[in-house]
């Protein structure tokens, strides 16, 4: 049974989407089916957890089937496999995805406009996200990666806010630009590497595992370090690293490639904002850890300082922009930019702590940002107003809402006891340690980044003060808005998220058991192969 678990996880939502599409329009079945599928995925994930062995490193639960195999004359053979598997990096993110999709489906319960299309697209997006995190074949990864764009484009563009068309097109074009850069490197990699266990003819395989092994680089290919091909005075391998970095950086998003994010978030409906922040941004970090660093470790060792620099810039700039935001949703969007900067810093340090911290931050931010966007959605549902300055003294009117917001804000600003604190501490540890252990990034990066924590505390506390404290006041354009407190459906969504962020804050081993083997092997391989390849370039 458990050899098909991952396929089940990926294809269940696609089947669900088909069912939703053939059902007659205008019924309420669509959302029930979407929820059922999401819950079934939860069940599948429990089986996955049971089958997964945390004591092992490397890929587990692998499924591999031949997909494309083309004989190409002088090239040898080009091969792409349906190859899905999990390791310590994929598993936490898959778990997060399963969980967030359940929440997002519940949060979409009251969607009115063309329900059938909405839930069908949501399910397609679900499959694409699962596939992206599971795929271990570059072509398959790219397929799922691109396949996310179209549903997202329509979900923002049809069900979004006033400037939804602008935001959706901007999102699509930015992300496509990034994925074209990734595509360029993918083609280069395909033709420059061979499969590990081929006999006779050269097999160009899309398998990421094969591409990671530096012994598989074909001699005299463009990416062969010994050939040392240069373009505009920079090694082609470094170019490839930069392209991948920009490609995933757009998705992450890092400053200055982040400008699509605030627009997309502000215009997207609540559930879609949740998915965007909690899952889609993680693909940027995932790509860095899975593809950029392991495949070009030599360039990574040269340019880690740059990655860290962009990380720190994102942390500081995101926090400052959040402080200046007048729109609550925009504030949270910018806080996402700031928090994802920690992922960059953690990855750049190439230490066990840093890498584990980056993964931890991705999961933690996934949970906390989902909570934050849900809370904004709650307020927006009631008043259709997200301007911070229009509210004050909300704590007296909506006490339960206030307590959840308090918790989410504190979790997000990194208070001890919440998951965000654990993640950031690990990232800082890694960043401080890096200079001494591998000399990749200077301590000053970590020192400047701590400023981000202070700024985070500042904008969250200031927002609390402005919106919740003082005398109740609501400046509304429509008069008879009734500010009622959270209802049961909303608590049903928020409570699990709150419990999880506390649990991961107090018992980090829950997550680190999975992450640590991955972080160890990631650090080891990147440093070792990086040094080996650099030794070839500069003997």
């Amino acid at each position, binding site marked *: 049974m458990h050899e098909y678990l991952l396929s089940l996880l990926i294809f269940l939502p696609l089947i669900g989407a088909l069912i939703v599409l053939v059902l007659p329009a205008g019924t309420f079945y669509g959302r029930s089916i979407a929820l059922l599928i999401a819950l079934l995925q939860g069940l599948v994930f429990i089986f996955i957890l049971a089958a997964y062995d945390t004591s092992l490193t490397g890929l587990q639960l692998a499924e591999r089937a031949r*997909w*494309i*195999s*083309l*004989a*190409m*004359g*002088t*090239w040898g053979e080009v091969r792409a496999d349906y190859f899905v598997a999990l390791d310590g990096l994929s598993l936490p993110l898959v778990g997060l995805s399963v969980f967030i999709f359940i929440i997002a489906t519940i949060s979409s319960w009251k969607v009115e406009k*063309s329900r059938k299309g909405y839930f069908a697209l949501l399910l397609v997006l679900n499959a694409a996200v699962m596939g992206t995190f599971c795929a271990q074949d570059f072509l398959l990864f*790219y*397929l799922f990666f*691109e*396949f996310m*764009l*179209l549903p997202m*484009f*329509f979900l923002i*563009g*049809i069900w979004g806010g006033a400037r*939804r*068309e602008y935001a*959706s*097109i901007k999102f*699509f*074009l930015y992300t*496509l*630009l990034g994925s*074209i850069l990734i*595509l*360029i490197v993918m*083609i*280069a990699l*395909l*033709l*420059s590497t061979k499969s590990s266990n081929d006999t006779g003819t050269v097999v160009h395989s899309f398998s990421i595992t094969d591409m990671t092994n530096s012994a598989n680089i074909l001699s*005299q*290919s*463009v990416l062969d370090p010994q050939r040392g*091909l240069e*373009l505009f005075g920079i090694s082609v391998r470094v170019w490839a690293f930069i392209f991948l970095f920009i490609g995933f950086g757009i998705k992450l998003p890092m400053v200055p490639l982040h400008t699509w994010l605030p627009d997309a978030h502000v215009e997207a409906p609540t559930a879609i904002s949740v998915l965007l922040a909690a899952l889609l941004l993680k693909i940027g970090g995932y790509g860095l850890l899975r593809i950029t660093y392991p495949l070009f470790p030599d360039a990574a060792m040269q340019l880690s300082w740059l990655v860290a620099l962009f990380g720190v810039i994102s942390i500081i700039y995101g926090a400052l922009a959040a402080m200046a935001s007048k729109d609550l949703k925009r504030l949270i969007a910018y806080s996402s930019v700031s928090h994802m900067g920690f992922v960059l810093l953690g990855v750049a340090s190439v230490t066990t702590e840093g890498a584990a911290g980056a993964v931890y931050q991705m999961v933690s931010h996934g949970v906390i940002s989902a909570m934050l966007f849900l809370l904004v959605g709650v307020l927006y549902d009631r008043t259709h107003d997200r301007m911070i300055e229009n509210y004050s003294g909300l704590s007296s009117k909506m006490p339960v809402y206030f307590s959840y917001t308090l918790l989410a804000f504190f979790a997000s600003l990194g208070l001890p006891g919440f998951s965000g604190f654990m993640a950031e501490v690990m990232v800082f540890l890694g960043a401080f340690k890096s200079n001494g252990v591998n000399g990749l990034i200077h301590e000053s990066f970590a020192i400047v980044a701590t400023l981000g924590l202070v700024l985070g505390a500042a904008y969250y506390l200031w927002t609390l003060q402005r919106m919740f404290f003082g005398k109740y006041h609501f400046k509304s354009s429509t008069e008879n808005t009734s500010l009622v407190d959270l209802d049961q459906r909303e608590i049903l969504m928020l409570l699990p998220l709150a419990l999880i962020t506390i649990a991961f804050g107090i018992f980090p081993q829950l997550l680190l058991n999975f992450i640590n083997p991955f972080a160890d092997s990631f650090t080891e391989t990147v440093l070792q192969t990086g040094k080996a390849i650099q030794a070839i370039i500069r003997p």
Partner: protein
Amino acid sequence: MLGTNEKLEWIQLSLKYFLPELVLVGAFLILLLSSLVLNKGHQKKSIDWIALLLLMATLMASVISWNQTTANIPLFSGMLTQSTFAVYLKLLFDVAGVLTVLLSWKAYEYRKAEYYALVTCALLGAHVLVMSSNLIMVFLAIELISLPSYLLTAFVFSKKSMEGALKYFLFGSVASAIMLYGMSLLYGITHTFDFTSEVFAKAIYYQQTPFFFISVCLILAGLLFKIASTPMHPWAPDVYEAAPSPIVAFFSVVPKLAGIGILVLFCLAIDLKGNSSIRWYIVLSLIAILTLSIGNFAALLQKNPKRMMAYSSIAQAGILLIGAITLTNQGLQFMLFYATVFLLANYLVFLYIGHFERKSIVDMESYAGIGKSNAASSILLLVGLISLTGLPPTAGFLAKVFVFSSLWNSYEISGQGLYLVVFVVGLLNTVVSLFFYLKIPYQSFLKNGSNTVPSENSWGVNLLGFLLVITLLGLFFLPSGLMGWLNRITFAL
């Protein structure tokens, strides 16, 4: 000079390889006759069927000759050459012909028999063009495509379509004249019209002069006109806007692919297997980059779907040229893969542009809200546009990856920086193209339309659309079959 008996022998031997073209000639005559013999009522009822059967027969004949052909066979005293490359292109033309009939089904009733006869005639021209190994035949075949094309442009019988036809005619005749001039110059250098011959190769090997360069450029100008490639593209938008939709689909595929086919053969001849001291790949690369960029950026500004698709087809010609730049077996095979996918996707898009046009949805803005009233049609159209953009999971993505992989491979072997520039510019153009390909889905799904369009009478269209979509998706998930066919093709002269 050959004696009469030898000539007769040539003809006798050649005819059995000439079956598809003979069927086309027969089809042309039958269609013309039926416009004279059949009365209006009968014609209206049966002409679509007659045309469909005749073009199906041509397709069958081409399939037969595909199975017969393994090596190059000279025909008609070496005027034509039957090659696997030519036969594959002919298969594509015939598929396009059948699709053109299906797209014109029960529409454009006025003078329908002549309409089909002209399509058949242009198809014949395309068939002959890709088989040509003699410059005179090239010229004749291009005229055989062009003359019916001018007439077909006018087949809407409105003032606008007359204008388009006249423009096309004027541009076209100038382009032909330029090409003919180039050919006569080239004859002066080589003393032969047969560009596949030893004599030709020897002559140009010793005369790599500016004079030779200019004469080849003049010939290329005529070919690029047919491909609708920069700098010979400005006719395309006006003509596309004026002509009936099925004919636009036909124009954007058949003459273009035929032009690419003969361009490849001619370039193989003047490249002298890489021994030419004039580096033709630079010329081709520049043309490809310009075509791709101008096509894509100009398409951004268009408000009429047909004009937009005109620029799109210019840009697509750029990608086909990228496949041809390197003149390697691999590159050309992938170019044919791309051509196949492009044909299917383009017909899919024009199927719906024509379909909506008949519901008087002409401008981009009038597509607003169609996504709700005509959901199935809009989704199928979306897949076509996505395939033209080159996004997964459509065959357009795989085709693009293949074409650019072969370019990368050539860069890897030769280390020519220009290839890398073409590679990066070509792929980044995808982002630009996405913006305009999304314009129609953007209107139909994201905008709310004021006019409600009935969705009746669309099951036939949707069935055809669905089949095309399935093929496009199928070629993404299982490309091995088609690639197996393409691997059979050799590109020797």
